């Protein structure tokens, strides 16, 4: 029997377990939320107009029927799974009757694009600098870089974002500070649109990168400083192996392995959106959608987003588990 297949099969079962329990948990929590989607719609429809109490009562009844939010939890649970399996999360309750998938589908590319890019950039820069700083411990420049990065890291995303907004939107207004692309530009595969998307992505991405680098930096630095005392590194130094090779193949490469896992998980997390950044830059992403779903009690939407997020993270874990033995030869299958 091929050991790899057994291994992969086991991992896959674990993946299924994670997805099923994760989604079940999310389902329960979402359904226990006291925010009632019907009430949210009612108050939206009535809060500014003259409101005849009788009409409101009728409206409530009809919405309740329309949304189908009644019924025992267990039935809803099975209906929900039925939907998940067909990749359809039913209608969004706050955008009734537009399907949740349509709503998510509009926001997803923005978030995923932005976050994937920012995550990867932060990962590369953070790890590179962290590895350099761990290896060349006495370099002043790197020490300084370390201090700057560490100083930036604890500053809340919100403040960094806002500072960038003020800096590049007001003090030196060279970049757009809000939205995903220029106003009145239709999405198309042309330079005007793409350049606009890039331009609008710079500040949010920069925020995410500035915030994200620190974690990678500090972990990489500490991994590296552990590794440089290993015999094989010492020996390579004694062997006159070029510093650049030692750095990349002996130090960075060995320290990189756990970081690859980290990257995969972060990429899995991309599907959860970046609430604060989207909020600050008014970026049309999934995080904002999710929050508004929570606010409006639209559990279909919330569950849609969380389900995708859970599957993404679990898949990332699964994939990394599968390929890890390929990148770390020491790992045994088991």
């Amino acid at each position, binding site marked *: 029997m091929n*050991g790899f297949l057994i291994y992969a099969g086991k991992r896959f079962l674990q993946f299924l377990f994670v997805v099923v329990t994760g989604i079940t948990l999310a389902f329960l929590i979402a359904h226990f939320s006291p925010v009632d989607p019907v009430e949210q719609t009612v108050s939206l429809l009535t809060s500014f107009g003259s409101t005849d109490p009788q009409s409101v009562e009728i409206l409530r009844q009809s919405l309740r029927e329309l949304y189908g939010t009644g019924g025992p939890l267990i039935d809803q649970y099975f209906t929900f799974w039925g939907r998940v399996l067909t990749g359809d999360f039913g209608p969004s309750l706050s955008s009734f009757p537009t399907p949740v998938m349509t709503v998510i589908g509009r926001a997803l590319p923005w978030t995923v694009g932005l976050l994937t890019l920012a995550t990867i950039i932060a990962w590369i820069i953070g790890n590179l600098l962290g590895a350099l700083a761990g290896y060349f411990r006495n370099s002043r420049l790197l020490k300084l870089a370390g201090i700057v990065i560490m100083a930036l890291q604890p500053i809340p995303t919100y403040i960094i974002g806002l500072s960038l907004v003020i800096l590049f939107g007001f003090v030196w207004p060279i970049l757009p500070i809000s939205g995903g692309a220029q106003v009145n530009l239709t999405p198309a595969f042309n330079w005007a649109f793409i350049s606009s998307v890039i331009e609008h992505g710079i500040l949010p991405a920069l925020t995410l990168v500035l915030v994200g680098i620190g974690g990678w930096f500090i972990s990489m630095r500490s991994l590296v400083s552990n590794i440089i005392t290993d015999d094989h590194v010492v020996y390579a130094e004694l062997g006159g192996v070029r510093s650049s090779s030692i750095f990349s193949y002996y130090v960075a490469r060995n320290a990189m392995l756990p970081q690859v896992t980290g990257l995969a998980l972060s990429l899995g997390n991309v599907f959860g959106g970046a609430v604060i950044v989207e909020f600050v830059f008014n970026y049309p992403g999934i995080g904002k959608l999710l929050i508004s779903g929570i606010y409006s009690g639209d559990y279909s939407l919330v569950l849609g987003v969380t389900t995708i997020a859970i599957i993404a993270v679990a898949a990332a874990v699964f994939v990394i588990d599968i390929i890890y033995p390929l990148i770390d030869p020491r790992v045994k299958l088991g």
Partner: protein
Amino acid sequence: MSGEHLLQLENVSKFFPIGGFFSRARMTAVDDVSFALAADRPEIFTIVGESGSGKSTLAKMILGSEAADRGTIRFDGADIGDISSRSAREAFMTRVQPVFQNPFEAFNPLTRIDEYLYATAHRFKGAKSRAEREALADTALQRVGLSIAEVRGRYSHELSGGQLQRIAVARALIPEPKLIVADEPVSMVDASLRMSIVNLFRELRDTLKVSIIYITHDLATAYYIADRVIIMRKGVVVESGDARTVLDNPQHEYSFALKNAVLPPDPREASTIIRQRRQDVGAPVAREIVRA
């Protein structure tokens, strides 16, 4: 039948997967090895052989830290694969103690060396107080030419290879086990000290009735102390028997070659052997090295 044996290996084999991740190939590290140590007659049982022939793997299986893929290993009549409960495991460890091959690997670089000694004294000898533990450790260390004072508070990288090996031996002595599995325990020790450790083994066998599985490349010491020897090559036992008999008069061609390869401690003879060897291997690669 098995009750008479301290240790009994029956047709033990071990395989390792080799090659790429997706390949099904495997290599046989230990191939159908059987032998037994008698319970009533302690002996020094030596394993010699080619490097990579599975000696350490065999040792690991005896210690229960690798499972045999085929065959059974019994200690005191019980299959060591069945040892699972904590107390059984503990009992096993009081009676079987290892000395690992690579002293630089055998000690955690982040743990103080004396911790190992104290833990052993505490767990297997019930030494409660610190003083008791130190005393036990010191006694053991003295036997290998060290003292607790030299070891106390130090880390493995602060000690020489020989010191580490001796500490490892000393530690294994503390529980007064019935069986010591020593994987090249003196490879990094000078000849004089080596003799004293080897003498110590002999003394343990004679006075404390400890059996010792002694894995080594040093045929001379093997000859010096071993009761029985097995010679391994590519996982297979090619020859076994009374140590002196086998080494004096090896039957298998590999054993023979091995014995003949032993360098005598005499410069004239020894250098002749090496010179001979150089010629056997043939002319050196006749190419000038172009230096970059």
